[in-house]
């Protein structure tokens, strides 16, 4: 056990160092694979108008490779819906309303395989639990003392893994009072791209080879893993990621139906415990 903890600490150090601990996003703009789009400085007068902030949010869609990943994922979801005999309007509605890739894949594949609506609802509900802590952790970034709950409803709807990751990366570069408008722009931009991809995938479905379909399905775990790893800037985050990956296969042997929830809470709590004891040692 001692050995394992040390390995993890070493692994997490290497993860943290690779990103430049403390300022994980400071170098983003100079990265060649990111587009040249740079947000104006915080003091710039172009942040005065909420509409401009919305436009900046929308154009930030072009600044992340995750947009490409989403595009391909929704191409796959469109194709999957076509093959499972759902209508185009239905799958577009699911992209707009559900707005969570894994949930849509689970919904379409369980309903398509003849499961009842209740069984599908349970599977989707369990996969969606992750949205709760994401919302709780990201909303404080957007709030000002004057913000009312209802101002955050639309931004909350847009929160899924991509927006969660991008908010941590981009919001520090946006003045606090414009962050909601910016998030609305980012969310609308991403939804538009995905609606287009869904339609395209639905249309192309009959012509997609199986290898391509497998490649698209592999995108989700790859992109989720790497974007989460990129967002890890505390030891608790790194440990949570590593332990979460390791615990799920063990817990899934119990076939509880809520395996992800059990492994997630257990791994997250252990990771927090390590963080807590380290903080105490330091104090």
């Amino acid at each position, binding site marked *: 056990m001692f050995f394992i903890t040390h390995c993890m600490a070493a692994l997490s150090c290497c993860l943290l160092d690779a990103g430049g601990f403390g300022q994980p996003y400071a170098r983003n703009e100079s990265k060649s694979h990111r587009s040249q789009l740079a947000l104006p400085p915080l003091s710039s007068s172009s942040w005065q108008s909420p509409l401009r902030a919305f436009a900046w949010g929308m154009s930030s869609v072009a600044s992340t490779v995750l947009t490409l990943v989403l595009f391909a994922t929704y191409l796959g979801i469109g194709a999957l819906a076509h093959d499972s005999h759902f209508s185009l309007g239905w799958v577009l509605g699911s992209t707009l309303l559900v707005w969570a890739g894994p949930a849509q894949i689970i919904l379409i594949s369980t309903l398509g395989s003849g499961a009842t609506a209740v069984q599908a609802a349970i599977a*989707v509900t369990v996969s969606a639990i992750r949205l709760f802590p994401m919302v709780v952790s990201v909303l404080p970034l957007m709030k000002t003392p004057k913000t009312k709950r209802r101002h955050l409803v639309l931004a909350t709807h847009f929160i899924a893994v991509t927006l969660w990751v991008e908010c941590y990366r981009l919001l520090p570069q946006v003045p606090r009072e414009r962050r909601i408008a910016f998030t609305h722009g980012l969310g609308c931009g991403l939804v538009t791209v995905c609606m287009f991809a869904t339609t395209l995938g639905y249309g192309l479905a009959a012509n997609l080879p199986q290898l391509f379909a497998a490649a698209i399905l592999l995108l989700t775990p790859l992109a989720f893993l790497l974007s989460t790893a990129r967002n890890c800037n505390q030891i608790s985050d790194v440990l949570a990621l590593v332990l979460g990956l390791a615990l799920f296969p063990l817990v899934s042997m119990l076939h509880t139906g809520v395996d992800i929830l059990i492994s997630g809470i257990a791994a997250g709590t252990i990771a927090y415990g390590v963080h807590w004891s380290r903080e105490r040692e330091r104090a």
Partner: protein
Amino acid sequence: MSEFFGSPHALLILVLAGFLPNEIWRMAGLWFGSGVDEGSEVLVWVRAVATAILAGVIAQILVQPPGALASVPDWLRYGAVAAGFAAFILTRRSIFAGVVCGEIVMLVGKWWLG
């Protein structure tokens, strides 16, 4: 129009089994999270749990692959993701490099297997 949207029954299922199960968790986060301060200790725990649940979703897709991904052997799926992660670390956290590398390993592996 009815051809575009399909039967009202299917749309009802979309709302009940797709929209509501997701939106409930988001709105619960909005409701209960409003008292939480940025930088508070609770948030560190909440973020750790969110990360670990996400890790569980990743592991689930890899261990119990859906649809066409099931046609890829276990070792190749794990190998492709490991290669992608290695590329990500080597390129100083480039998601793009990691994703491309993982996909190439999977495609080459499948092609090699025939």
